[in-house]
């Protein structure tokens, strides 16, 4: 009930939908919800000069880290919905945080996605000398020895955790999920032999080359960087897991402002040089429109809501 009230309240404070012809007329703040120097920051700083050239205004970058991004997104939905404040958004974070916490400070629906410009598919990775040669071997071992296989992830209620819970449900096997303080400590733990397997994104396993072995990736089609790597689907598990990065504005932002921003970001996302650099780092370049992103968010929320409910009660 409180959630409904909040959404209604945010609708009430809609600003005038009439927008001056000349959007944008002044600087547009680009908020990063993670620490300076992190992946989100460096990506935004790459986009910054191109955005400034295309939109003709300054794009200052502001930081509001904390709570796994939630502090920044809470800040975003408090801002005036006039098209002059945008923020980096991450899926699944903006779906899972409001689901899993009593008061994340924002609701998913209060954020209007402008574009999703990149995707990092996730999968299960082991060290090259691991006894598990295939996903099936690992699942079989876990079924015989419930809880004995440790699988690392980047945190709780993030992409790796939700994928893990879905995977356990599908296999019926019991693993020990070990959350870490983000991606890097998770990688270190696998490399040092502290965990037996780990949920890795393509960009995370690529640098380690032959030192690691990937068992499966959770996409519809095989990934470009590892064409021979089986998908979970091809092995009989209907699992899709990716982190998407994009940009959002407060719900209620005038449609033409969103369209203008989307146009600008889409041009950057489709730039051949930007695409090539992302692929080299193991990141899939995409240019998903705000409307498609909304559908994706709604679909994922439907699948995840019951799982989160089951494990938080």
């Amino acid at each position, binding site marked *: 009930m409180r959630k409904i009230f909040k959404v209604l309240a945010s609708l009430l404070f809609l600003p005038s939908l009439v927008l001056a012809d000349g959007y944008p007329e002044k600087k547009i703040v680009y908020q990063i919800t993670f620490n300076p120097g992190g992946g989100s920051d460096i990506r935004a700083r790459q986009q910054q000069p191109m955005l400034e050239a295309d939109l003709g205004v300054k794009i200052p970058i502001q930081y509001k880290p*904390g709570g796994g991004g939630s*502090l920044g997104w809470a800040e975003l939905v408090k801002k005036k919905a006039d098209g002059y404040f945008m923020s980096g958004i991450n899926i699944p974070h903006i779906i899972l945080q409001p689901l899993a916490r009593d008061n994340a400070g924002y609701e998913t629906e209060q954020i209007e996605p402008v574009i999703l410009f990149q995707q990092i598919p996730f999968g299960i990775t082991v060290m090259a000398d691991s006894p598990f040669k295939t996903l099936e071997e690992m699942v079989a071992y876990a079924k015989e020895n419930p809880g004995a296989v440790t699988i690392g992830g980047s945190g709780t209620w993030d992409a790796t955790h939700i994928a893990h819970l879905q995977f356990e449900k599908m296999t019926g096997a019991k693993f020990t999920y070990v959350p870490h303080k983000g991606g*890097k400590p998770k990688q270190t733990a696998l490399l040092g*032999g502290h965990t037996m397997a780990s949920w890795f994104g393509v960009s995370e396993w690529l640098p380690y080359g032959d030192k690691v072995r990937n068992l499966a990736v959770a996409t519809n089609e095989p990934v470009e960087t590892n064409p021979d790597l089986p998908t979970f689907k091809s092995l009989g598990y209907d699992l899709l897991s990716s982190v998407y990065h994009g940009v959002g504005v407060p719900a209620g932002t005038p449609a033409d402002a969103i369209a203008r921003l989307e146009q600008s970001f889409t041009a950057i996302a489709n730039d051949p040089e930007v695409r090539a650099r992302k692929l080299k780092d193991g990141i899939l370049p995409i240019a998903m429109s705000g409307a498609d992103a909304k559908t994706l968010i709604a679909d994922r929320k439907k699948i995840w809501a019951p799982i989160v409910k089951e494990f938080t009660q």
Partner: protein
Amino acid sequence: MFDGLLAGAAHLAAPMNLVFLVLGTALGIVFGAIPGLTATMGLALLVPFTFSMEPTTGLLMLAGIYVGAMYGDAVPAILINTPGTPAAIATTFDGYPLSKKGMAQHALVAAAFASCFGSIVGNLVLAGAAEPLAEMSLKFGPAEYFWLGVFGLTIISVLSSGNLLKGFVTATLGLLLSSVGMATLSGEVRLTFGFPELQGGIGLAGALIGFFCLPEILSNFIGKRQNTYAGTQVQPTIAVIKETIRDLLCRPVLMLRSSLIGLVVGIAPGAGGNIASMVSYSEARRWEKNPEEFGKGTTRGVAASEAANSAMAPGSLIPLLTLGIPGSPPAAVILGALMLHGMQPGNDLFVVYSDVTYAFIVGLLVASFAVLVLGTAGSFVYARIINVPSQTLAPLILLMTVLGSYAIRNNLLDVWVMLVFGIVGLILNRLRFQPAPLVLGIILGPYIENGLVQSMMIGGASGSVLTYMTLRPISLFLIALCVLSALGPWLLSRRKHKITNVNNSDFDTENATGLNADSIMGVVCLAIAAVVFFSTGGLSQYGGIFIRFCIGLLLVLGVASIVRGVRQPQKVLFFDSVIERSRIIIGVAMLALYLVLIPIAGFVVASLLFYLIMSFLLQEKAMTVIGVVSKLIQAVVVVGLLYAMFYYILQVPLPVGQFFDT
């Protein structure tokens, strides 16, 4: 390797590269020196500028910033008892007492020389033995981090010699504070008391400024109306530089030990300079011949801390350059910069891009010397800062405390937390409690909690948690260190029992009207334990174990404090005089009003008003017209410069206020 180093050195012959390296070092010193700004932030802000540069030039500039910041944080630690970054906490222990004795320049030179020394040792190891040491960094798992954290806590026994109980009480409160916000591993929200903004946890910058800086200002400037910050005047001379460096050169063991400690802590991924300098300081104190000089102002204490945190920097680059694992937060930003220039850490760096990599390593070495030159030359300027009359300096520092605690996360709640910590810090000081163990608790809490929780998970999967946590080489080594460290002072104190008693008596001034510090603290502990217990009932096993452990500790320590307070009452007088009390209360009220005013009137208006009011309040004599005008001009210039720096250069979104929001 030598070919690589030579090729790398060749890059530095290019004047442009050298210029950017020195420029980076100078910028790094500034970032390190301003509380609230960190090496991480400086690096992050400079990374975009390196896009347009040659990779080598860009990386050299970043190298300079990293090395410079490791020294810069010592400057405010020495001069105003405020660590520029958490890595300089241990620098305050002896640096500030030196300033108070009028020996600020000694401390500054010692810091510069030790930073340079530590950095050189670290870089030589980085250049020579990066590969084999990288493997060592992977050995650090959850159990090792847990024991590293526990070992860190045993340092309290060194820090609070004479009163172990007080040290443990404050450290436990620090551990509890570290658990505020979203639990790193279980994702549960804890102890936020209804403020969603606290989900990000307690900001370390706010804690440092609140516990170290604010109590000094409230007490010395506002309460006692001290004329200058440290109460003494400094006249920097060249002779001091020679004397200080000669002194430290006679202590090769101290310098080497400190550097090696820093290096090892740097190699362990995730553990940064914060821990390095604390461990190094306490080891210096343990092994030196005259440990009683530590804490009262000795250049050896400053050197121990600074050599360690500067050696940490190259240490943290070892796993970064070889494996792509950053050993510290700033190293993570350097990783991002490498990737942006298309260089993937690992073998690539030492094979494909070896000349850039070695140029970077040589750059770090050259930056170490730049620090020595800039630091010793700069000591003439910095040292004079504390000669500035307090009416001018105090309002400026107060503005900086607000900006410093705000800037890192752009969160006004962090500033309020800073103010509360400042008041708590003042109360603790008056009750003869040290702030250092508390901040140590905040820093070490996450290592202990995450190490424990992950060990329980992984140990549980392997059959036995206890076996997993203890029967590992590094764990056993750390456990042995913990035992030695915990028992050491106890054994020593038994031997020298009588001497310590005499030493302690100088502040045990009996006063019939004073407060019983231990009993008060004991009751507070029990109350906090109760509040925490009743507000964390719904946590899961993993989310709650650390908090329950802290509650248990608080109960035991609280009862022990009360017992001690009753059996050996140590009465302390809270305020020296009624005037002091009212001055401090007015000072705190002004700060609170200022914070209330910021979101309403905006940063600029609120700060101008605050600066003027504080200047007038601190003025003893009646002011002439010229005096008033000059204060006005001063206020406009100070606020204007700060605003320009934070708003335009650092792009911190300072509040504009409700009236001016367009």
